[in-house]
């Protein structure tokens, strides 16, 4: 099933524009996902789900994108999983020839236990953390979506159900609606990808720095906005199911499920839903999504990507290729800032209250 784009479509109508690059990327993503699903039909297992993240997960892929995929296992260990992952990798390669990134985060077996039980603390790792956050923010299942949903529910149960706030009350209707643990993880993730950029730039001697820099300014930042909005779901959206909760436990289970529903909404669409809320000026929405459309258009162009890959750090300020998307990223940032800090009736208070200190 294709992801909802209702809010994005409505903003386009209100602004009288068409974000063509976003539309093309969504259509391309759906075609690739359909091909992948067809190709993997013979490799199903009830305990496993093939998950894609990255541009395929966000609905922003082009034919030159890579496939950031993992085999998510939620059940008994089987030595056959290794062979299954290899076969899946081969089948994915037939549809998406470009290899996934070099960090080992993708194209591998991921066991749900680590995602659910090793959250923060000494046993969490950068790779486990990244996989967990991307599973929440930008993942799609190519096979067995119920396994993906089940693991997400368990991860969110850790964040929401098993981390009560000290201020919780036993009074119905006054239970806490801010999942602090999740919110802290979301903020941690954004700072982690920002510092990882610096780390990779150092380790790889500037190789590929410009592409990573531009992605940090757009898609990574977008994922951060998804996390903030998803964490504040109960404050930003209608939550009729919470009214049924008689106990704190029920409230937290239902809050967790409301956040889980956001994991089926792409980051751009979720941002668009908030951009439609009271206080946000239409021009701000136009600025945010117009800039993102320019980013997607640029990255969908193979020549542009090649040029961007070769930009030298010390020459970047004078490089037209780099500067063209950096300019768009400034628009994106200013639009996001206006939405979160100035215009949205609730967000400016919520971010001030929960976002930093």
């Amino acid at each position, binding site marked *: 099933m294709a992801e909802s784009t209702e809010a994005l479509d409505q903003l386009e109508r209100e602004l009288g524009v068409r974000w063509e690059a976003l539309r093309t990327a969504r259509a391309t993503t759906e075609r690739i996902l359909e091909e992948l699903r067809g190709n993997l039909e013979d490799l199903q297992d*009830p305990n496993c789900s093939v998950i894609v993240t990255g541009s395929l997960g966000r609905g922003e892929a082009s034919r030159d994108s890579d496939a950031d995929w993992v085999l998510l296992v939620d059940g008994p260990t089987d030595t056959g999983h290794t062979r299954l992952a290899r076969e899946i990798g081969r089948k994915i390669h037939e549809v998406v020839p470009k290899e996934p990134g070099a960090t080992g985060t993708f194209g591998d077996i991921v066991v749900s236990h680590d995602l659910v039980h090793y959250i923060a603390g000494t046993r969490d790792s950068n790779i486990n953390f990244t996989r967990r956050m991307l599973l929440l923010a930008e993942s799609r299942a190519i096979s067995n979506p119920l396994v993906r949903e089940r693991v997400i*529910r368990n991860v969110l*149960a850790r964040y929401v159900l098993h981390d009560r706030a000290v201020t919780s009350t036993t009074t119905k209707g006054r239970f806490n609606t801010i999942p602090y643990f999740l919110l802290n993880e979301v903020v941690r993730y954004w700072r982690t990808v920002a510092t990882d950029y610096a780390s990779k730039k150092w380790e790889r001697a500037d190789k590929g720095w410009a592409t990573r820099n531009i992605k940090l300014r757009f898609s990574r930042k977008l994922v951060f906005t998804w996390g903030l909005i998803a964490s504040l779901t109960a404050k930003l959206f209608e939550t009729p199911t919470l009214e*049924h909760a008689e106990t704190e436990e*029920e409230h937290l289970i*239902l809050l*967790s499920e409301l956040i889980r529903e956001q994991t089926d909404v792409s980051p751009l669409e979720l941002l668009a839903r908030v951009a439609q809320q009271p206080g946000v000026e239409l021009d701000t929405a136009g600025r945010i999504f117009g800039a993102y459309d320019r980013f997607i258009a640029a990255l969908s162009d193979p020549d542009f990507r090649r040029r961007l890959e070769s930009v030298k750090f010390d020459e970047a300020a004078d490089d037209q290729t780099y500067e063209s998307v950096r300019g768009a990223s400034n628009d994106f940032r200013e639009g996001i800032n206006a939405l979160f800090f100035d215009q949205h009736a609730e967000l400016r208070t919520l971010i001030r209250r929960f976002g930093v200190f």
Partner: protein
Amino acid sequence: MRPVGFSTGALAKGDYRRGLELQRALPRARAVELSALRDHELQPLLDGLGELDLGGLDYVSVHAPSKLGSLSERETFERLAALPEAWPIIVHPCIVHSFAMWRELGPRLCLENMDNRKTTGRNAAELRVLFEQLPEATFCLDVGHARQIDPTMALALLMLHEHGSRLRQLHVSDVGPRGEHQPVRALARWAFARVARLVPESCPLIIESVVPPDRLEPEIEAVLEAFGPMGSGAPGLDASAPPAP
């Protein structure tokens, strides 16, 4: 004490007489579900009704075939309609295609929520579509199916919030990834306790766990611990926290 008992299918597969016999040895089991899970088991069940000894039972339901092979949908319906009117008929949504026909059963038709192998009836929204077509139908909440899809039990809570007024009975067991009905152990017990408050005391608990005859009593004990009375077995929020060092 909540009404509790076994599905004869869990006790003796298609041999409902043997299932009843095994259950009769359990003083606390005062509810039973006669199972005709395979369609060829339905006619023998109907033929044997007159000879059944149901003494000592406060509640009887029948589980309709879950897959149709030798019987058509209409033939299945006609046989089920001939059952005693007081007995709820537990039906998997996937065998229901001719809604107008099934509507004739009124509240006797009791739809069950499904596990991960099915593509309908798995959550509150999918059940809503079915209940719109079958407005008088009642509801059998299979807590094992719900937990198999969602270990947090949010889906079960949402089903109870939305369809709880239709609730007629529960199916209770742990359910494995391929739909296997297993004994209710600690993790399932804690999960089920989360929704116990929303299950009325009078709602029969039909156990589907497949256990050997000498484990039937402990299985009843485990189920009652999770659900009764009114979920007193609930461990509380902190029970899932790791032990202190």
